[in-house]
């Protein structure tokens, strides 16, 4: 009987297409929005992955990784003096104004690395030499920087080209690859001393202290020791990532905004699939009554309806997630919007689609269970 149930479903083209379309749309919306949200969340901690330090020491009132509250220069030595710290280096980070070769202003994320160690260096150099950051007025920019700092209609900027940061010359000595920063600005790396010259002068200029524990020392224990002895906040990279994500969840409208769209996708899916499937059942009520009269049990009809509901659910899910993945393939090379399609997102969408299918099937089964087969004798 089940092959006939599928033929009954697919034979009603209009309803079948509407059911699959509704579920596809719902699955696409939920998966795509979830993936964009996850991508955005991953951006909030990309800074930590780009620097790859074990311990981050920040000012006591800093709430998340992308926030900067300056420290005193002497704090570096205080951190270095904590037992278990192998080394600690200063790092500058700040959003500065740069001018491209056309003179247009662009925002950049300037990172000043400790000159001697270049600790916190970009994860992958594509061209040029990081060591040349020790020369005056030199910078390494990332791929987004190449894109943003190139003038329209001209060849992209390259090693050896110059641009301005805060009216000071910056000569490109390397191109690197980084993960996109949460704020969306290109990374520009320089030495710490050089960064202090680019940045507007303030009383305190040190943004972050990056530290490493001695071999064999537990990272978390060392971080706790730094916090205890200096009064600064010290996080392991994982802790800082968690704190950052928690901050975004609790203090911004971003999750609510995405959740609203995801919930809307779910509601649209439930409404379209439920309504369409119920109307499909109503239109076939007479035939279902005839089947009941001919000896089909309510359980048999319920299984037929479940099969029909889950068939359109599976097709809609596959198409929706497939389209979301295609969206990802399209936007990932461009770099935005952020997109991170994890297995957990697909599982959540699958659960939502299962709920929709169960709801739709339930409406139909309830109707069929109450159906008197004698309906077929009414003219």
């Amino acid at each position, binding site marked *: *009987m089940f*092959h*006939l149930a599928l*033929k*009954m479903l*697919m*034979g*009603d083209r209009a309803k079948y297409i509407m059911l699959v379309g509704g579920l596809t749309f719902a699955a696409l919306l939920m998966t795509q929005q979830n993936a964009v949200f996850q991508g955005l969340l991953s951006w909030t901690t990309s800074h930590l992955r780009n620097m790859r330090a074990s311990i981050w020491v920040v000012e006591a009132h800093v709430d998340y990784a992308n926030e900067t509250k300056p420290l005193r220069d002497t704090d570096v030595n205080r951190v270095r003096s904590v037992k278990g710290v192998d080394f600690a280096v200063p790092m500058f980070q700040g959003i500065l104004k740069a001018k491209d070769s056309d003179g247009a202003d662009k925002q950049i994320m300037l990172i000043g690395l400790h000159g001697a160690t270049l600790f916190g260096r970009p994860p992958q150099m594509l061209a040029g030499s990081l060591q040349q950051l020790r020369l005056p007025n030199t910078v390494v920019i990332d791929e987004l920087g190449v894109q943003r700092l190139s003038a329209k209609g001209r060849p992209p900027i390259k090693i050896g080209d110059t641009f301005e940061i805060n009216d000071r010359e910056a000569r490109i000595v390397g191109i690197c690859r980084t993960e996109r920063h949460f704020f969306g600005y290109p990374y520009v790396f320089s030495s710490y001393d050089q960064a202090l010259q680019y940045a507007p002068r303030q009383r305190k200029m040190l943004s972050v202290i990056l530290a490493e524990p001695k071999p064999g020392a537990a990272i978390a224990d060392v971080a706790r020791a730094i916090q205890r002895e200096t009064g600064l906040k010290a996080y392991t990279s994982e802790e800082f990532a968690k704190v950052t994500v928690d901050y975004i969840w609790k203090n911004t409208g971003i999750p609510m905004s995405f959740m609203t769209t995801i919930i809307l996708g779910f509601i649209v899916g439930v409404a379209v699939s439920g309504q369409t499937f119920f109307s499909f059942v109503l239109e*076939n009520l*007479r*035939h279902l*009554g*005839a*089947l*009941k*009269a*001919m*000896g*089909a*049990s309510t359980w*048999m009809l319920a299984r037929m309806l479940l099969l029909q509901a889950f068939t359109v659910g599976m097709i809609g899910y596959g198409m929706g997630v497939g389209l979301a993945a295609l969206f990802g393939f399209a936007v990932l090379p461009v770099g935005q919007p952020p997109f991170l399609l994890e297995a957990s997102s697909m599982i959540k969408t699958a659960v939502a689609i299962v709920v929709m299918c169960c709801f739709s099937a339930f409406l139909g089964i309830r109707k069929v269970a109450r159906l*008197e*087969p*004698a309906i*077929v*004798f*009414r*003219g």
Partner: protein
Amino acid sequence: MSVPFKAPASTPSSGTPTAVRVRGVTKTFGTGDSRTVALKGVDFETREGELHLVVGPSGCGKTTLLSVVAGTLDWDAGEIDVLGTRLNGMSKAAVTAFRGRHIGFIFQQFNLIPTLTCVENVSVPLLLNGVHRHRAEQTAAELLQRVGLGDKGRKRPTELSGGQQQRVAIARALSHEPRLIICDEPTSALDRDTGHHIMDLLSTAARAPGRCVIIVTHDPRTYGYADRITEMEDGRVRQVLEGDALRHYVDQHT
């Protein structure tokens, strides 16, 4: 006066086993002001090998009687025995299973599933009885051949005329070789010639050993096919006609 479709070649004798026995059945719909008593202590009996017509004006309780005999509708009081099985006290699931095994249905509106082919429609009762799909479709194709629609097996019901659809419905009703075939106004939506053809098929089906056909109808053109006619009026059996009385009744009404 028009000629009735056809008189039966032979009629079952009174010694033939009873296929359906209904005793004192009552059925009420609704409550309060909207309460309607559809069956008022109906007694009804039909024998194996018989083509039995139930006739009467609209609202007299014919279809309600048919529904309770088929086990598709609960009744309030009385006893119903179908093919030697007492329906009283049986669970709904048991009645459904009994129906699936032993009763075939032919409906006024055919009730063929429009998205399935004729072969698939005819195979439904077999599939419900656990017959393998391939075997069920083979049997369905043979039955369609028997009702003169051998070449229409892969067509959908909507591609056929009303008469052809009713023949498909007959093939479906016969597919699992039921002992009781219940028909609700099988000719009312058909023209005269097609009605003849359908009644010929039903008459032949009724002659199969151990089988009987009960037809609820308004259509006097079918009376000539009956072995027995039960006339109903206002929820009661007015008269049961057979033999000379039946012939006289047929002459009067056709």
